[in-house]
């Protein structure tokens, strides 16, 4: 049971990291308020199921769409700002959204919101069922991101990330693609929020505070910006670490902060990013294996 709960939590972080990675990693936009959209999804679905009595399974796609629309509107407003302005505006969005949750009566204000457990064919959802759901969502997201990267859209994002000026001179509508990436990333975060709200059965405004955005960013950055494996690895590493190192609980934030500073100072591309020391060694090993295999085959042919 304990293991399953931890696994679901880590899975939620994986989804959040993957979705933020679309914005930060693939589109290269400094979005610092991802938790806000996580929260919008959570509160949207909680309102639907617990206040209006609509099924959880309908609330999932609605949370995805509503968050995506809000993300698109906020994206349209803020994407025209350059890197640093964008970072600060998104931090601002995070604070304002949390303030709205905390001060509006329909969102339970300062009492938080109790969310009813959803049913799956008449049975109350259990932790293993959530784990399966999360796992399916992660696989779907990964497939989607893979597909996206190989598409024209993915190539356009890569060109924007590398050189915005050059991309726009080649006729790529930079703003459109940036907003699209922002919308996709926030929509997936909203979907994750819906699952989170129903898994926890209680949500409170501070669950979606700026510090949560920072942890999601840390996961993406520690794992490796702009890669699927990096985002997953970072989320698993930073999600499991607090459980493994419970005896260090008092020093957790210091370790966290220290890790961020050290990573940025010495390995800004992340542990599994392109050309990080781990990936260099792994590819060296693979190259060696290939060479040996190739050598063996040649010998066989001869």
């Amino acid at each position, binding site marked *: 049971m304990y293991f399953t709960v931890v696994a679901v939590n880590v899975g939620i972080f994986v989804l959040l990291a993957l979705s933020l990675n679309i914005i930060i990693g693939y589109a290269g936009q400094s979005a610092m308020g991802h938790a806000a959209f996580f929260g919008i999804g959570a509160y949207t679905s909680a309102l639907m199921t617990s206040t209006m009595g609509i099924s959880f399974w309908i609330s999932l796609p609605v949370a995805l769409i509503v968050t995506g629309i809000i993300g698109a509107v906020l994206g349209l407003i803020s994407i025209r700002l350059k890197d640093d302005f964008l970072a600060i505006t998104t*931090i601002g969005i995070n604070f304002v959204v949390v303030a709205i949750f905390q001060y509006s009566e329909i969102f339970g204000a300062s009492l938080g919101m109790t969310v009813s457990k959803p049913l799956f064919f008449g049975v109350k959802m259990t932790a293993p069922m959530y784990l399966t759901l999360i796992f399916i969502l992660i696989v779907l997201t990964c497939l989607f991101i893979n597909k996206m990267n190989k598409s024209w859209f993915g190539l356009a994002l890569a060109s924007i990330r590398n050189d915005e000026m050059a991309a726009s001179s080649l006729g790529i509508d930079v703003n459109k693609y940036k907003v699209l990436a922002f919308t996709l990333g926030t929509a997936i975060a909203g979907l994750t929020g819906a699952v989170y709200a129903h898994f926890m059965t209680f949500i409170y405004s501070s669950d979606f505070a700026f510090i949560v955005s920072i942890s999601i960013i840390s996961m993406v950055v520690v794992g490796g910006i702009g890669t699927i494996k990096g985002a997953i690895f970072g989320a698993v590493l930073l999600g499991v670490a607090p459980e493994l190192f419970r005896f260090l609980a008092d020093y957790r934030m210091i370790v966290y902060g220290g890790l*961020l500073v050290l990573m940025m100072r010495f390995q800004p591309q992340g542990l599994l990013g392109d050309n990080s020391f781990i990936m260099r060694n792994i590819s060296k090993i693979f190259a060696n294996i290939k060479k040996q295999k190739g050598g063996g085959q040649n010998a066989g042919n001869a």
Partner: protein
Amino acid sequence: MLMQQLVNGVMIGSVYALTAMGATLIYGILRILDIANAAAYAIGAYLGWYIYSISHNLLLAFLLSMILTGLIGVVIQKYIYYPIISKPNVIPIVPLITSVGLFTITGDLIRLILGPNVKEFGVVFKSGAIKIGKLIINPEWIFIIVLTAVLFAILWFILNKTRLGLAWRATAEDSEIAKAMGVNTNISMALSYILGYGFAASAGIMVGMLYNSISPTMGDIPSYKMLAIIVLGGLGNPVGTVVAGLIIGLAETLVSAYMGSILPRDAIAFIVLIFVLLLKPSGLVSKKSA
């Protein structure tokens, strides 16, 4: 009542401006959004509190704490930020995350070393509050407003009347060209940090005095409010920062005094920011016009 709110607003606003000034100076030269400035604010407050509790000399506490925090800033700049930003192709989020990391470490270090509880600052002014009609002005407030004014005057003098300031402005304009013209940009960077962290430290002590309390989490709110202020002031523009600090200070006191608690006080800065950016994407005082 309105007068009282205006006085409160100006005082809070000038403390905000002082807090954000460090981030502005640093952004002006290194193009880093340095959230760790709020760490300097907390460190400064604790150093000031410690020095004051030994010496019982407020000015000495301010001076020593500002110098020590400034030196810490120079060390951080030299060994952490500079190597990061001098690598080729740094994405702008990298130094920002670094500063978040530094900020987290500092808050937690203070908590582990000195304990999580709130400490009383314990500065007592002998003279009582000045009353003009209904208007009440505490002696601390006068001290804070005067000290802030003096610090800004010193900053203005350094930036506009000395060779050091000329070098700073040249580096802020274009660090490559400045370097080519023989300006020692390393000194400009060090100057940014020593002044920036020093100012943040003095703001920390002022807030500690004002509310008679310091705690390891005291930097949390300034850490993001400072960002709103420097953006509002046009990123890297010292004059804009003072204006923006005063605007946010006034907006906060007036909104919470006359409109009640529709919105939490600390979100107001960002709402003002988002509105201003919608109308004027380059900030209130853009670089060109200053």
